[in-house]
């Protein structure tokens, strides 16, 4: 086995194990921490594809931002076992059926789609480099400049909106 394959198996095992532990652990904080580990191993998978940018952005966005907010909320809510709401049996049954249907659909999609397995032609171009990504995203003729700018303005507006929401209203006389 090549070292890459061994790394892949190890990473895949970690991803699956932490994903299952996220669901199975009783303590919500443990769940959140397992989810962080899961995200890390997914970033590792991206690195195996030589997609450095994607891996790093994945770590920044998911592990560095979203999961920290999750942890924050869970820690401040201080969930205990006593507060745990026991779901009625019908909800559980519904959840199980939905999961089975969804997984059947996913397995079928995976079986009928034909993934491209084979050798890729070498073009001599480094497609994972940030320069390449930048030209693809920001080129005004062939690229996605206008959607990109729209998305960035949307994010900026969301951030300013968050700041405004937290602003205290001055008492009007």
């Amino acid at each position, binding site marked *: 086995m090549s070292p890459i394959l061994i790394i892949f198996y190890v990473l895949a095992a970690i991803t699956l194990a932490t994903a299952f532990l996220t669901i199975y652990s009783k303590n919500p*904080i443990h769940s959140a921490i397992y989810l962080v580990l899961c995200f890390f191993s997914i970033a590792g998978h991206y690195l195996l594809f030589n997609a450095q940018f994607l891996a790093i952005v994945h770590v*920044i966005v998911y592990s*560095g931002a979203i999961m920290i907010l999750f942890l924050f909320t869970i820690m401040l809510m201080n969930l205990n076992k006593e507060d745990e709401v026991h779901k009625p049996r019908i909800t559980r049954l519904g959840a199980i059926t939905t999961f089975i249907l969804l997984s059947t659909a996913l397995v079928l999609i995976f079986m009928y789609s034909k993934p491209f397995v084979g050798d890729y032609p070498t073009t001599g171009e480094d497609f994972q480099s940030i320069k390449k990504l930048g030209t693809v995203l920001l080129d005004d003729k062939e690229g996605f400049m206008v959607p990109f700018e729209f998305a960035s303005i949307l994010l900026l507006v969301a951030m300013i909106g968050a700041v405004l929401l937290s602003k205290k209203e001055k008492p009007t006389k």
Partner: protein
Amino acid sequence: MDSAFIIEKSIFIVVIFAVTMVMAMYSTWAERKVAAYLQDRVGPNRAGWGGLLQPLADGMKLFAKEEFEPNTKNRFLFFVGPAVAMSTALMTSAVIPWGDRLEIFGRTVILQATDTDSAILYIFAVVSLGVYGIMIGGWASNNKFSLMGAVRAASQMVSYEIAMGLSIIALLMMTGTLSLKEISVQQHGMHWNVFYQPLSFLIFLICAFAETNRTPFDLAECESELIGGYHTEYSSMKMGFYLFAEYANMFISATIISVLFFGGYNYPGMSWAIENWGVNIGNVIGIFALFAKLCFFIFFFMWIRWTIPRFRYDQLMNLGWRILIPLSIVNIIITGICILAFK
């Protein structure tokens, strides 16, 4: 990959690790000395000449102290907290260019552990992970004060990360690259970025103070309100790790500030020195130049700590969200206009 390359990189990584540790160790000594100087005292002067062996004595003390554990259900996470804090503090040094290159036995040795073209993103990724050490440790301590300290520290770090990222964008618009090596090369010949981006530098510096939880932003360990902050329950070497991680972070952020804004390993007359004295001597002086710059910034961190009192928490949040973020957005716009007008 030939084995010589692997050996070279391994040696380099070990050297960086050792240097970071020694610098962090002696920062604790320097902090006491600077504090003593600013408060008209002598400072540590018993162990070794001028107290130079004090950090070793402190380390011995921390190892030898009794390990006390709080009554917590999460013993494992209680252990993980300081470990995460320490490892994230040490991870950043992988992408920093410590010098240009050396020629040893006919081999060109690049003085950088890895030169990825996403180095700045990597640094931000590691910085954003630094919050976990504090949050996990604070929560696993099973103590209200620790939890409050952790939440404070984490929300402060998360808030200032935004301003930090935005302030760096103006710089990246100018340099056009994310690789720290490239940024260092571009600053050759006194074209230091601080002359072109003073506002960006100022915002970055303030955010670096907040990210390392140093005074005036050390609300996480506000004694009068929170006892010891997130490491209230820690004792012995685990607390040592948290404190040590702070100093390692300080060293790394001083390095990043010098690389991004103060020319990195460049110094006046570098090309002349390389031409006349050879590549090796010229670049070794470069390494010392970088260390001189970062030592100045470490001193600056300490200088501020013993000069400015702590902010109030609402003042801290106001500064981060209402002043620094708008300022850095304005800075981005001004930089964009200048690039359009002059290039």
